[in-house]
């Protein structure tokens, strides 16, 4: 569906409705209640499986190893004390959850990725986070600072078993060109609660890609605000949920500046009993945000019985003076006509299904735009398919 400016104008005539897109944030932990699960922003999340990360679990000494490469011209290191404190909120984040407020207040150190102004880093900065003990509840803060007109790609690569709450703050300087890719390739038992908050500078380009395959519960909020007109954000997501997994992605593009753009595409596949995915696409067009353009899309491919895909686009518009705003959401099984077409060319049903799933993800994988991980993502999709679609005894 595309919202034309006409229909936007008529929508503006209704009275102001209750919205969860204007939370009163606070850095004070005491200002936030622990969620009960009835709140709009928590209603899909299985709180019982979060091991208290959302409430008052102790943030213990980390059992997740953290290693990275350091391309020339870039500073990457763990910092603590005053420097760590000075990095809290560099993305403009004012926590609207107890857990995020706790992370900012209680975690003693931050991982700082500092790319100075005018620095172009060709090689991706890869941070490997490998969990070793799922019984350790822990938290982390990552601060990425990209100077004006810098250019860089950062990959956060999560593997192993962790129970971790993470706040990732991303400050994108004016005119910078930045990609942040977060891969959740956890072991089956991992619990990962994360909030990625980006502030996109004037005329800057920001791409965020969330890729979730593993873990027992993975919930990520990927939010964007703008620090001036002309900024552009592309929010991409790819997820594949197996039996029993809960994978939840929420995005929030807060158009708080004129002539900004946001474009979100999330695609997911589900297979196996009680595989559950959630996508909530929030877009807010504030009164000041004239001439903006936004489009968000979520597509889910349900491969077996017993799965549940929730998909909720949510667009809130305070000005009709915009270039365009639209959204699309679709959840479907295999398309019989596609399978018939492929099979009528001699291709077996399994191979046809495999082609369709690869095709479903291909465009998105290319859009991530990091050649070194494209191949890996293709292989991971293949490995996921082997669990059901391509299984020898699959009918």
């Amino acid at each position, binding site marked *: 569906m595309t919202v034309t400016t006409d229909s936007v104008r008529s929508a503006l005539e209704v009275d102001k409705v209750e919205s969860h897109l204007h939370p009163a944030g606070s850095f004070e932990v005491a200002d936030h209640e622990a969620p009960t699960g009835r709140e709009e922003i928590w209603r899909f999340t299985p709180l019982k499986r979060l091991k208290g990360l959302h409430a008052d679990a102790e943030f213990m000494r980390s059992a997740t190893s953290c290693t990275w490469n350091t391309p020339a011209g870039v500073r990457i290191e763990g910092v603590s004390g005053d420097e760590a404190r000075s990095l809290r909120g560099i993305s403009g984040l004012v926590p609207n959850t107890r857990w995020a407020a706790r992370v900012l207040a209680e975690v003693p150190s931050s991982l700082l990725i500092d790319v100075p102004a005018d620095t172009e880093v060709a090689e991706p900065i890869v941070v490997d986070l490998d969990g070793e003990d799922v019984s350790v509840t822990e938290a982390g803060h990552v601060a990425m600072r990209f100077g004006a007109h810098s250019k860089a790609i950062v990959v956060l690569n999560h593997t192993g078993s962790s129970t971790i709450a993470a706040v990732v703050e991303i400050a994108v300087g004016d005119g910078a060109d930045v990609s942040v890719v977060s891969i959740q390739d956890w072991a089956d038992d991992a619990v990962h609660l994360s909030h990625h908050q980006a502030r996109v500078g004037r005329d800057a380009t920001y791409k965020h890609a969330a890729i979730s395959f593993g873990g027992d519960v993975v919930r990520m909020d990927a939010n964007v605000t703008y620090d001036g007109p002309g900024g552009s954000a592309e929010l991409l997501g790819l997820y594949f949920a197996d039996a029993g997994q809960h994978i939840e992605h929420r995005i929030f593009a807060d158009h708080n500046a004129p002539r900004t753009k946001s474009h979100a595409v999330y695609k997911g596949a589900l297979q196996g009993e009680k595989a559950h995915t959630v996508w909530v696409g929030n877009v807010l067009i504030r009164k000041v945000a004239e001439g903006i353009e936004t489009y968000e899309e979520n597509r889910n491919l349900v491969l077996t019985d017993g799965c549940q895909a929730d998909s909720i686009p949510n667009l809130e518009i305070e000005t009709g003076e915009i270039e365009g705003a639209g959204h699309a959401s679709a959840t479907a099984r295999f398309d019989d006509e*596609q399978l018939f077409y*492929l099979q*009528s*060319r*001699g*291709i*077996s049903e399994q191979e046809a299904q495999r*082609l369709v799933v690869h095709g479903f993800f291909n465009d998105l994988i290319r859009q991530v735009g990091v050649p070194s991980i494209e191949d890996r993502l293709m292989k991971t999709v293949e490995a996921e398919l082997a669990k059901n679609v391509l299984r020898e005894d699959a009918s």
Partner: protein
Amino acid sequence: MSKLEINDLRVSVDTEDGPKEILKGVTLTINDGETHAIMGPNGSGKSTLAYSIAGHPKYTITGGTVTLDGDDVLAMTVDERARAGLFLAMQYPVEVPGVSVSNFLRTAKTAIDGEAPKLRTWVKDVNGVLEQLNLDPTFASRSVNEGFSGGEKKRHEIAQLELLDPKVAVLDETDSGLDIDALKIVSEGVNRFKADGDKGVLLITHYTRILRYIKPDFVHVFVDGRVAEEGGPELADQLESEGYDKYVKAAAAS
């Protein structure tokens, strides 16, 4: 050797009002090297015949037989039929987003032949066929049928016909929606396929236009799920001047 025999084929589809019989006993034999044209008005069941032969799940076979060189086609899955040597050029080819034409063609060729085609000759073959059908080489990197014009879709179907080289081709209104240039290009492709040897062609069409470029050996007039009249190429000329009216009226009267 290729012989497609359709004997008293009866087919129904499920509708809101229950099953509806579309094909009411179709008998037709296509021998080695023969081209048969099936002509008929809209809704006569021409496309149902094509899709039933290919095995589309929407259609239920309620009676009759279809054999290819004596093998029971109706007992085969859709992909088995293709591997046995049947090909259906569709009226409305389906989009498969994210799957490139080259990947699709190679996967299909591998499935049909039971082994991957030799890389060097295959690339040459694909480019040759695309060129003859006036399709740009970049065509191979586009997603299957996605964003194709009507003409591109039909030429892509014929490219598959030539590359997969089946025994019997069923062409379902391949001519519809084509301008005269595209019609010639597509017809030349079909004629190249025919010239290849003992191929059977079942050409389903609403118009006589394509028969100027692809010469049929036999023409069957299809009305209300049955063959109402059979003859040689001269029957097409008669239809050109008289239309289907007399057959439609006769069917309605019976």
